[in-house]
């Protein structure tokens, strides 16, 4: 069973619709004990990092997420703000986040580009994650983006005010800054890849060190 974390203001229903369309059994989950029964967990995201962290706290989900992701190594996918909160800290509302990946989340340069970024942008992937990740266009809505400390965690990049992190992964932890559930067939294909993994880690790929 695929668990989609259901919290106030999240777009869980859209993610659920995409996952069930792909033929997987899935449910919206807001109780900690239910979350620990899931084979895969998706953390959808809309709105701000602060509000998202507060919702998770209020629902008492922080410990369960940590247990599932860090101890049990359940494949986890964070989408948009759901990816941003994987890092230590977000500039948005000065928010402390989950800290699963070292790094921080910063704002696009409002002097250079329109913020939020809203629309389809091309993502270049560094590696296949045990399933094919093809360079393609995905749908973004974001004002902030992650800057991982460890560049090997960068899975995909795109260009806005400069190159920025569009997707990350480390072991069983994945994140896409774009809305994978709203990125047409390209998004569904990538989502299917995530849903078909059994966990485990990946190594031996190129990184974007030279580009960032």
């Amino acid at each position, binding site marked *: 069973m695929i668990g989609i974390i259901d919290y106030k*203001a999240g*777009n869980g*229903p*859209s993610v659920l*619709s*995409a996952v069930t*369309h792909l033929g997987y059994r899935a449910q919206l989950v807001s109780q900690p004990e239910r979350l620990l029964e899931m084979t895969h967990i998706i953390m959808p995201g*809309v*709105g*701000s990092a602060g*509000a998202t962290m507060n919702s998770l706290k209020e629902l008492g989900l922080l410990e369960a997420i940590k247990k599932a992701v860090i101890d049990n190594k359940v494949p986890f996918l964070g989408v948009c703000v759901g990816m941003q909160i994987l890092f230590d800290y977000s500039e948005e509302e000065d928010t402390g986040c989950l800290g699963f990946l070292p790094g921080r989340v910063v704002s696009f340069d*409002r002097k250079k580009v*329109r*913020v*939020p*970024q*809203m*629309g*389809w*942008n091309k993502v270049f992937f560094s590696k296949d994650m045990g399933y094919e990740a*093809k360079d*393609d*266009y995905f*749908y*973004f*809505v974001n004002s902030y983006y992650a800057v991982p400390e460890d560049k090997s965690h960068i899975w995909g990049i795109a*260009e*806005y005010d400069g190159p920025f992190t569009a997707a990350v992964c480390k072991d069983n932890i994945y994140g896409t800054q774009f*809305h994978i*559930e*709203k*990125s*047409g*067939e*390209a*998004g*569904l*294909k990538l989502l299917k890849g995530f849903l078909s993994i059994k966990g485990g880690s990946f190594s031996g790929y190129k990184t974007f060190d030279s580009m960032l």
Partner: protein
Amino acid sequence: MVTKRLIACFDIIGDRVTKAVNFKDNIDVGPADELASIMYEEEIDELIFYDITASAERRRLNIETVKKVAERIFIPFSVGGGIKNLEDMYEALKAGAEKISIDSMAVRNPRIITEGAKAFGSQCIVLSTQVKRTQKSPKIPSGYEVYIDGARVATGMDAIEWIKRGQELGAGEICLNSIDNDGTLSGYDIELMKLASEAVSVPLIASGGAGKPVHLKELFTETAAQAAIISSMLYSPRMERNYKVAELKEYLLNENINVRPFSTGKEA
């Protein structure tokens, strides 16, 4: 870089898409969910769904139709019509919409923009507005006036001032429709879109008047609009011919306009 978007806009009555000229004489086009599927297959970038009689009939948005559409498309999807409060917004989002479009209600109660942006994020709130050319005056310095209630009622408000205020109140996107050009197939109101796209920093969706591919080129080269609504071109039975999204994309790419190419993930 982020690409220019082509958006299909559905005017919905019940569960059917209709097409009007100058907000009158709606003719039936087809079932909303079927047409949404076709647009998705054609790789439209986004979809907007307006329940056009909800406000006038003083009822809430048709949630069942929103759900039926949302189950069949995996691209961004905005809904509008009959949205009066946060609860209505929440219902629409729960039904699978990404963004909420507010129009007349925002004029009557501008606070709803801020409330919606606070509850669901600015990216979720689209301020949609209908504007008409008028004499420039101290009260309407841009020469464009805001209309509400299906473009029937003049408000005395300046269009450019209103969208700037909408942005300040928290709207994450502005959708601007030219009443004069709507349904004429004679092209977008370039002067209006230029003024508007320079007045706000959030994305501007231009609406009203697209009839030929060259109109999209004009819009994207002469203004800073980031998205264009095309409806008649895609499916109006009144058109001499309809266009496929793919041919519009190909045309725009040939004109060096950055759009998401057709069939990027699969064979053409």
